[in-house]
């Protein structure tokens, strides 16, 4: 047991940290969902056994590496391959037929984290002979998760879960067709990798950068407050081609947002919308 007195991060401490991060790095977390941020900050001070808040602010101001580390710690990066198998079943049945009609397929995964979701999508495309005519942009705010995504290397621990997700998602082959095991790590096939472009992009401050047929942004906007969500949705709408499709997380919604009436639902359970003509 530690005798360290734990400090508690409340609203005012969080505001201080948000301000400091903004001043020193330009990253703006002020429109993030407060309850999640509080937990992340709390987790950061707990894990680093920080017992003096003033000192923490001092240290952060003097050490930009520490600020970067804090930023990486407070974004939630949890992800899986074929996470929510039901979504991928739906994608096989309802998205793939739409994509099949296109001469060239452009996809954007916003907030792709360590990339598992992107590789899952690439596998889906491959299984439908669509990978060759696809380009996938995968972006995130966090440089270190992108490094992992780019390497396509994952720990073996999660494999069992991925295999079962794949199976549940009604995958026709074996997940092992798409990776090899090297030095105790899963390594995704080069063929999948070659079709994905990984790059940093901040949904809060950066501009739309291309036009897409499909935008996938799952479990990212739950970390934003309502007004930031609205902005992001508008940017997505702008970035979609005519009849382009937007897929967000199963507990997220574009209802009550400015783009609600500019999109028509494709699947309400898995939150997939199509841009109205």
């Amino acid at each position, binding site marked *: 047991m530690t005798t360290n007195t734990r400090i508690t991060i409340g609203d005012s401490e969080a505001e201080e940290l948000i301000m400091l991060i903004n001043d020193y790095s330009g990253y703006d977390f002020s429109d993030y*969902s407060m*309850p*999640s941020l509080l937990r992340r900050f709390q*987790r950061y001070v707990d894990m680093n056994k920080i017992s003096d808040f003033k000192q923490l602010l001092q240290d952060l101001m003097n050490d930009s590496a520490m600020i970067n580390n804090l930023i990486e710690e407070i974004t939630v990066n949890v992800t899986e391959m074929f996470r929510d198998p039901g979504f991928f079943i739906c994608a096989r049945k309802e998205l793939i037929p739409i994509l099949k009609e296109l001469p060239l397929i452009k996809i954007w995964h916003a907030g792709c984290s360590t990339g598992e979701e992107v590789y899952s999508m690439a596998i889906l495309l491959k299984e439908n002979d669509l990978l060759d005519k696809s380009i996938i942009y995968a972006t995130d705010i966090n440089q270190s998760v992108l490094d992992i995504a780019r390497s396509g290397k994952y720990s073996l621990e999660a494999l069992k879960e991925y295999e079962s997700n794949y199976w549940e998602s009604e995958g026709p082959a074996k997940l092992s067709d798409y990776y090899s095991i090297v030095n105790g790590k899963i390594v995704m096939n080069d063929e999948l990798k070659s079709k994905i472009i990984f790059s940093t992009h901040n949904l809060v401050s950066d501009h739309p950068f291309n036009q897409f047929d499909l935008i996938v942004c799952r479990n990212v906007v739950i970390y934003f407050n309502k007004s930031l969500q609205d902005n992001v949705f508008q940017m997505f709408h702008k970035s979609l081609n005519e009849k382009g499709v937007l897929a967000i997380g*199963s*507990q*997220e919604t574009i209802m009550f947002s400015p783009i609600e009436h500019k999109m028509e639902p494709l699947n309400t359970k898995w939150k997939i919308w199509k841009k109205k003509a």
Partner: protein
Amino acid sequence: MEKEGVIIFSGSAGSIEVIMNIFPCIPANFPFPVVLLLHRKNTIEHHLEDVLGRKSKVPVVEIQDKTYLKPSHIYIAPGDYHLLVDKDGMLCLDHSEKINYSRPSIDVTFDSFAKVFKNRCIGILLSGANADGAKGLKTIKEHGGLSVVQSPESASVITMPMSAINLFEPDLIADTQKITEIILDTVNYTISNFINKIKHGQDIKEELPSILIVDDLADNLFSLNAILKSEGYKIDKANSGKLAIEMATKNAYDCIVLDVQMPEMDGFEVAKILGEGELTRNIPIIFLSALGSDKEKVIQGIESGAIDFMAKPVDPPLMKAKIKLCLSISAKNKARKKTLTAIKEEHQTLKEFTTDVSASMRYAQNIQQAILPKAEFINSLFRDNLLIYRPKESIGGDFYYIKEFSGQLIFIVGDCTGHGVPGAMMSMISINIIHNIIETKGILNPSLILNAMVKEFRTAFRNDTSNTSFQDGLELAVCSYNKKEKKLLYSGAGRPIFVSQGNTVRKIKSTSSGVSSTISENFEFELNELPISDDTQVYLYSDGIVDQFGGPSNKKFMSKRLEQLIQSCQHLPMNQQKQIIDEAIQKWKGKEEQIDDITIFGAKIG
């Protein structure tokens, strides 16, 4: 910004059943939102919503990110997300790391709600198989909310409720029936008043303070009434001393305003009589007097009770202030009386509880049974096995521990000194220690397991000289079987085993010393590696069977007889062996009393 109050039900394995009983009782106009948080995956179909929706009188909805709770709704937390709430009461989902292997984690949600809803939050923790929720529920209590735990006797899986009970003292421990009653009772109150009522045992359907005013002149009564009525008090009037005494003995007034100059019986006399009455003695009195000089006399006349004095004509603000003071004194008096009765009542229930030994035994039995591995689980690990577990009383000092860990089957039969409650306590401590050694420390070698136990016992009971039962220890047989390598290891601390192979039965001797805090940490328990063939069967047993008196000349059963018994039936499937051994014990015992707990575990391996 709808942030009135909230009731959160939470649980895991075994809690659906409870929910199915409670939720249909919630009336359509229920004034609070109800949140349901279960450990569950985000399944493709929404079974739970559908089933609950059909049974419930209020709408059942799945929680969406960034929404507010509304009264008369049941909200189900989606699988695979933590549920948080921001300071305005907006629900936020979060997909960060699992906590306690769970997402949603009950701890996370309770913690978040506790801080936002404070004393308007009721957290209910039901049946479940891990420790999630205990810490969070404690936080709810610490922030003034109400912490409710399903009583372990009524829970089908007790780990979750027990973890909470072990961690802190929940405000309420209740079975399904009681929980339903509580939930339904909330409709009569605001949520904070309700919580206050439960926590402090006081009903807050607020009673207005009542005041008796006494004067022989109707005009005076009228103006006094006018002054006090505006303060929201309940006012009674009496126009004579005699009537005042009569009324005061019937109603518990918080204050009496008493005119001094009255015909027949004057104010002082009235006060004196009130001062003698058991019920009226402590009622504060304010005297009204036109003379303003009788103070001395007043104080002499009355021994106890607060007294005050006012000159006529009455100055309304002063009067009001004085009444307020009297009322606060009266409230204190009442509270003191209440605590006294509460203490008396508690004492009474405590007495009833301890005399109801059979109830507490049943309770202990539940706990013990929950700790021992279940038959289905054991069956899943062995090709064939038999288990006879017959404590002398409803609970006992014998136990068995069976587990597959890292490809090895570990099976243990232990026999703690003593039976009944002390034996059972010892057995639970032992199981806990074994669990730690094997599952936390990963020690799988039987003789090292025994050594580790000795070490734990030495640290646990080193300084304990007071309680003799802890100076005792236990005997046990520990086996591990490596399925891949087909290797069977055995080490015994006072408990030998039998091994049957082909037509022969062999007894494998044990080191004679049992495990206790008094032997050396480096004591060597002999490790035996036993050869295996396709039909190898091992039998672990406590000494209850071999020590049992009975038979024709009332002798002990003896291990030789057990060996012969096994020899005679070893070729049979194990459930038949079980029957034969069972019958033999019954026959031997006859009318004799069972002298100790009896346990036999046999398994076919190889």
